[in-house]
């Protein structure tokens, strides 16, 4: 016996409190559901693998000074020395660090000419050690040969003849082909400089974690003849921290340069996603706070309504209501309020999501978040009302005969 009709009609006669709570539930739902979705979205984003051996990799920056600084010789000797260190799997000179926030991007296109659109791609300049140092898997084609590697001068802007691209990039460029069929194809960089795809690697993320084309990356067979350079070093598991120190000391032996920065990739990831982590914490706080506030609102309204209706509850008990009927009465009443709240909440959730999609480039909400949010909010309502409702069942039937 749910008494839906009479409860609903009685609610309509005391609607202000109920409407306020329903509206509160609606807003809470809209905010919580969107917040949960953003948290999920951001935490998934944070978890995306960069493709490299993050736990065992670090980079170190070196800046030479003086006009007589021997760039090529220093880089060659540095790499030889680092690669010879026990515990180093491989090392490579590289222009940018994946997911670090700064790097180079170019456009690759399948037809030459400025009138054709290119696909944005992150450029990593590496020698033949790049694949091993970055822990990449060559899915098709072949690695660069030592003879493929050329020196890029500070002013040099021509591009090498060969390129290795990620599987994702190959699919972008040649959507109709399988990635292995992309090997041997010519693509154009800088509108009309041809490069032949000689290899496909599995996964390598670009430096910019917020970029839509994060998985578009290419390896260019080059070493850089720059005063300032950067080495990426991959170690055997457990040796990273020790080798960071060793490599730093090793490079510091050359007094005509300074070491200006050394970081683990773990740190790079943490720094790049710090915004996400902070947002997740803030949103979690918002969710918890709103849930508590809304629950307290429900508890407050229900307690007030139980106190106000003490006599009525006593009368109902006198007329034959069991304790369970009284409990059910308040649970059903709350359910009616919550149900109307979450229906309104569903509309508000969608509206807020549309706003967020356009303002913050957040993906649109998956549909199932809405029913899940409705269910959760109703359950929160039922949980919140249970205490006051249980208290109502303790009101004695004899209250009905008291003339107070």
């Amino acid at each position: 016996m749910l008494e839906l009709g009479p409860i609903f009609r009685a609610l309509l006669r005391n609607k202000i409190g109920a409407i306020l709570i329903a509206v509160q539930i609606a807003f809470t739902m809209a905010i919580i559901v969107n917040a949960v979705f953003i948290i999920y979205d951001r935490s998934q984003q944070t978890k995306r693998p960069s493709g490299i051996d993050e736990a065992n990799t670090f980079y170190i920056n070196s800046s030479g000074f003086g006009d007589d600084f021997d760039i090529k010789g220093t880089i060659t000797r540095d790499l030889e020395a680092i690669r010879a260190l026990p515990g180093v799997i491989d090392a490579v000179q590289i222009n940018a660090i994946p997911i670090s926030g700064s790097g180079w991007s170019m456009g690759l296109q399948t037809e030459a000419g400025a009138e054709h659109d290119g696909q944005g791609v992150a450029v990593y300049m590496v020698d033949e050690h790049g694949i091993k140092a970055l822990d990449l898997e060559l899915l098709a084609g072949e690695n660069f040969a030592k003879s493929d590697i050329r020196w890029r001068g500070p002013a040099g802007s021509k591009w090498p003849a060969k390129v290795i691209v990620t599987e994702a990039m190959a699919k972008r460029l040649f959507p109709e082909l399988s990635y292995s069929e992309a090997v041997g194809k010519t693509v154009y960089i800088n509108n009309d400089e041809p490069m032949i795809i000689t290899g496909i690697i599995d996964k390598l993320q670009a430096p910019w974690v917020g970029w839509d084309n994060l998985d578009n990356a290419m390896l260019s067979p080059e070493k850089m003849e720059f005063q300032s350079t950067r080495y990426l070093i991959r170690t055997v598991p457990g040796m990273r921290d020790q080798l960071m120190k060793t490599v730093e000391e090793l490079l510091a032996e050359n007094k005509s340069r300074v070491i200006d920065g050394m970081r683990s990739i773990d740190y790079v990831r943490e720094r790049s996603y710090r915004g996400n982590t902070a947002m997740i914490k803030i949103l979690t706080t918002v969710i918890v706070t709103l849930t508590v506030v809304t629950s307290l609102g429900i508890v407050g309204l229900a307690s007030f309504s139980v106190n106000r209706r003490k006599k009525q509850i006593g009368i109902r008990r006198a007329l034959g209501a069991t304790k369970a009927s009284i409990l059910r009465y308040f649970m059903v009443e709350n359910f009616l309020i919550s149900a109307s709240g979450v229906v309104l909440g569903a509309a508000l959730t969608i509206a807020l999501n549309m706003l967020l999609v356009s303002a913050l480039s957040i993906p649109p909400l998956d549909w199932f978040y809405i029913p899940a949010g409705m269910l959760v909010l109703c359950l929160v309502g039922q949980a919140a009302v249970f205490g006051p409702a249980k208290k109502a069942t303790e009101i004695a039937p004899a209250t009905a005969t008291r003339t107070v």
Partner: protein
Amino acid sequence: MLTMTNVKKVFRTDLVETHALRDFNLQVDEGEFVAVTGPSGSGKTTFLNIAGMLETFNEGTYQLDGEDVSHLNDNQRSKLRNEKIGFIFQSYNLIPDLSLFDNVDVPLRYRGFDAKERKKRIEESLDIVGLANRMKHLPSQLSGGQQQRVAIARALAGNPRFLLADEPTGNLDSAMAQSVMELLKEINKKGTTIVMVTHDPQLATQATRNIFVKDGQVSEINDVVAMHVANG
């Protein structure tokens, strides 16, 4: 119908022990209209609460319609109350947020009748009290006497074996009080047993039997009918 034997009810607080009923003995037979009178604090309301199973008691036995109710649990008492007893309260005790129809419906829903049966009973009982045309009204739209009639309709709708009335005319002027009394007498004539608590001796004399309660005990039982006959 209703038999209380040596019923004892004690209210205890940290400081005092109040004996509301002590060795309370009473038998009410089917078809009777019993008026219970007595001074304030004599135990009238406690008697009514126990008779209506709104309260438990400490000692003694209470048989309602042949069933010993002393050891029933809360749920069983609620069910029995709903089935066998109709309540009429001094302050009407209608639920202000519900229409007359929904008010009369309250005990019927607890009884578990289906919608059709409930509708029939609600309409019939509101018809008996002369308010069938005001079913959609709220209690606040009625006079005190009318509200008490609705309460009587609510008490009657479940077709109870007996009615317990607690100062049913206490809040009414004498004309309205008399019309409610007439209604109760009519209901009694149709076979419903009525126990009415009142402090008004004038009304009490209209019952078929008077019971005087003092210090938690039945101190005097007057057979009003016999008295009337003797006086008549």
